[in-house]
């Protein structure tokens, strides 16, 4: 034993605890249950750790670790069932309550010896602690580039967008919870068997906050963060001792000050100091890397059929009695003044909002109250949002990679053992994503964070992300907003080419001129009801449509739309007359 062996061991152990917080933070969840889980694992492990190696060769600690991790996993799962629906601070409070419950429970058990604590055999030394840390860090390193890791990041950035990419958000949130439970269990067992003693009061609220602070100070976007946080916070007291700062209040004050400095000036945590590429994945523009994708259904296959679909909020009918069908290869436009119910309709079609009346089938899935958006997404529906919902802190390419969730495979297990197929699958996913990114003209901005892109680029990135899922039905909610005429025309071309490939497109757009030129059919909504449906020519001539737009007082977009509508209608009439004139001349 040398002077700093305990310090070094604590650095490893604290880092493992921080990793259990990291596991939930990367999925955007603030859970403070980990310390309680660690406590539960530590104390229950005392019931099973034998004095002698099992069967003569299985070390007692290994049994404790496996058991403790299992306890952590099971307890996290059971806790997760009721609290998974909570978000943000509510989740934090619920999990905090769980930790307190565990503490009170353990204090009142006779086998834990209550508040007087329990002695443990010393089975953990500096080597064991660092080996355990290395394994945990390795797991998170391999996780970060896998499909699962991307799904976590997507959930952290925007849950709704993640759901509509086909990610089963509750399942992944539970997964992150359970992973945190396993790591916390490992920490609990190792900690007790290193310090030789544990009492339930050690695993308190303060300990939970310490773990959280360590993870956040280290940084939650890079897998070395928890280790850096642990090194920083564990060495501070020792450093101050070595520097000869007098014992007493001054030391915690200095520690607090340094903590403040780190939080203020390094929002990404200490890991933010490590220079690295924004995105771990690079653009793959080699067409040979593209995988063979499943062919789309034959042109003309019906993919959406709505019968009397409606949605009312209390007495307000947002959408009422809408009949609508759409087939592959078709472009269906949805127009109407603001508040007409277009987005509500689209939300119902994509499973984001449950209908309250009528029925509908999308890609073979019945629209019902419990139809979840990710199921529709995995069936082949992809969408963009009126209010842009990108994963802002992820690079453009990573955003599109998340979009490819549906058609890629999870590579975590393969990555853990470095199977060559993991590389191949990752490359294929990157190739699909790169192709879509290049298709919308963002190839040169692949590594830029989505949040740093211009408004128009963000719109295009959303489309690329939707396309990356190789959808059968593409839903675009105001894709041309903020684009100039040239850009809108380029977008129209893109949409036409998609329809030509056999994709069914449902599009909402205020740019009436563009819609009339682009769509095969247009349905007009006003006050939640269909007031007109037909070919663009029929719509342009329909006086009810113009009336609806003119009736929308004080709406600049509606005024523009009405103007455009009138112009186009006039053009159409003129064209008709010209044609008639020519005929007459014959």
């Amino acid at each position, binding site marked *: 034993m040398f002077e700093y062996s305990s310090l070094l061991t604590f650095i490893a152990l604290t880092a493992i605890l921080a990793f259990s917080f990291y596991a939930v933070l990367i999925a955007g969840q603030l859970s403070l249950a980990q310390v309680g889980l660690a406590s539960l694992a530590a104390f229950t492990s005392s019931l099973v750790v034998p004095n002698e190696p099992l069967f003569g060769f299985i070390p007692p600690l290994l049994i404790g670790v496996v058991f403790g991790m299992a306890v952590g996993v099971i307890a996290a799962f059971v806790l997760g069932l009721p609290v998974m629906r909570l978000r943000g601070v509510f989740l934090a409070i619920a999990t905090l309550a769980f930790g307190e419950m565990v503490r009170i429970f353990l204090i009142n058990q006779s086998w834990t010896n209550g508040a007087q604590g329990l*002695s443990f055999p010393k089975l953990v030394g500096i080597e064991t602690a660092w080996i355990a840390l290395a394994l945990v860090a390795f797991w998170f390193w391999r996780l970060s580039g896998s499909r699962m890791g991307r799904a976590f990041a997507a959930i952290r950035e925007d849950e709704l967008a993640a759901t509509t990419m086909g990610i089963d958000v509750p399942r992944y949130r539970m997964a992150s919870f359970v992973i945190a439970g396993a790591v916390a269990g490992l920490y609990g067992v190792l900690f007790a068997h290193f*310090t030789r003693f544990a009492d339930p009061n050690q695993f308190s609220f303060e300990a939970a906050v310490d773990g959280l602070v360590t993870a956040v100070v280290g940084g939650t976007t890079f897998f070395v963060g928890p280790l850096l946080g642990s090194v920083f916070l564990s060495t501070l*007291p020792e450093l101050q001792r070595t*520097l000869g700062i007098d014992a007493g209040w001054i030391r915690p004050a200095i520690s607090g000050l340094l903590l403040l400095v780190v939080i203020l000036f390094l929002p990404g945590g200490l890991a933010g100091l490590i220079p690295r590429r924004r995105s771990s994945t690079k653009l793959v523009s080699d067409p040979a890397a593209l995988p063979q994708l499943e062919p789309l259904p034959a042109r003309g296959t019906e993919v959406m059929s709505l019968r009397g679909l409606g949605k009312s909020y209390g007495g307000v009918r947002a959408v009422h009695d809408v009949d609508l069908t759409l087939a592959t290869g078709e472009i269906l436009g949805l127009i109407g003044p603001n508040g007409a119910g277009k987005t509500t309709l689209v939300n119902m079609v994509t499973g984001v909002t449950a209908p309250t009346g009528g029925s509908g089938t999308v890609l073979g899935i019945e629209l019902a109250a419990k139809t979840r958006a990710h199921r529709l997404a995995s069936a082949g529906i992809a969408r963009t949002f009126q209010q842009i919902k990108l994963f802002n802190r992820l690079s453009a390419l990573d955003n599109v990679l998340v979009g490819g969730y549906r058609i890629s495979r999870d590579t975590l297990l393969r990555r853990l053992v470095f199977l060559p197929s993991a590389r191949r699958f990752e490359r294929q996913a990157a190739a699909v994503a790169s192709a879509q990114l290049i298709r919308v003209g963002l190839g040169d901005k692949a590594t830029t964070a989505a949040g740093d892109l211009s408004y128009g680029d963000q719109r295009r990135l959303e489309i690329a992300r939707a396309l990356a899922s190789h959808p059968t039905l593409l839903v675009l909610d105001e894709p041309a907003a903020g684009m100039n005429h040239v850009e809108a025309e380029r977008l129209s071309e893109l949409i036409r080419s998609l329809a030509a490939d056999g994709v069914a497109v449902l599009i909402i757009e205020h740019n009436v001129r563009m819609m009339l030129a682009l769509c095969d059919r247009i349905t007009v909504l006003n006050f939640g009801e269909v007031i007109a449906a037909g070919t663009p020519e029929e719509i342009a001539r329909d006086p009810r449509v113009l009336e609806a737009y003119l009736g929308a007082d004080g709406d600049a977009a509606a005024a523009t739309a009405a103007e455009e509508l009138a112009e186009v209608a006039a053009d159409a009439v003129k064209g008709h007359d010209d044609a008639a004139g020519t005929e007459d001349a014959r």
Partner: protein
Amino acid sequence: MSSRHLSAIAGGSLLLLALAACSTTPPAGDDAEAGGLVGTGTGAECSIESEVPIAAAFSLTGAAAQYGSSQKNALEMAVDDLNEVGGVTYALTVEDDATDPQQAIQVFDGFISSGASVIIGPTLSNTAKQTNPIAQEAGVPVLGVSNTAAGITEIGDYIFRDSLTEDAVIPQTVAAAVEEFGLEKVVVMYSNDDAFTESGYQAFAAALEDEGVEVIETLTFSKTDTDFRALLDKAKQSDPDALVVSALIEAAVPLVTQAREIGIDAPIIGGNGFNSPALISGAGEAAEGVIVGAAWNSASENEQNVAFIEAYTERFDGAPDQFAAQAYAGMQIVDEAVRANCSGEREDIKAGLGGITGLPTVLGDVSINENRDAEHEALVQVVEGGKFAILD
């Protein structure tokens, strides 16, 4: 970019500086290894050339800071007093464990590798259970001056303490109270989420059984509770001859006050947690008649004790408490152990500590028994006229 690099460089150099500082710290244990700690003569004539390094780990910050700071004060005073005697000079290092076992373990590591002859502390029993095995393995004697929980000295033959356990004090308290009030049936209350109060409860339960007193009811609460009215109502209904309470002072004050408020007139018997001037200043009138067993009492007329209280009050501008007295006595015991073999070597101090018998200290005459626990007379006190008085 430049600012990012700057901060990276700054962070990196800080770390390097830290590592350099760590590696260049000279091990202070050179003297010990050279054998310069063995002196000539014995007892009062003992003379050791080198300073004997004494290390102490107390909780100077964190939850137990109030105890740790009086321990530190008293220990420093004891070292100054003993250094004046001459012959043996002590070099004291006091470190903070921040009431955190992780810190305490690292502090102990540091003490052991820097060559401390003996370690005094740590403040809390549960911390001692984590730190003392390290000293035991390294063969460094430890003298606890405030650990009262069971199982501390069982850690190993290098672990001693001068603090009386609850098991030593409480039977005397119960016996005195039974004799005074003729108790037959009592209600016991304790906070079950604290190691100290829980072991106090166990000692009470055992002592009451020994005395043949019936426990009508046992009520538990949390150490952070401050409202005991519901529990006290329940206790009142059983009409006990006395309330027996094991609680820390933070709970003791409201508990005693509220018991008197709702009209419980029965005597209240407290554990060591009640032995604080805060009981009287906090509970005032209500504290009258409360019986407290303790290892030390400020009213004790022991000559050394009177001098100690006077000197301490003058130097630190406040009266000493039991933690201070036990820390001061701890240094007196260490001094005796060093002088016994006239050596500051770890093994010799260990042998010396084992041989302490009837040493006059501020706590009274202290002996260390075969279990390495201290034995001295405990005091049963009663609050009378706003003061702790000895119950005769």
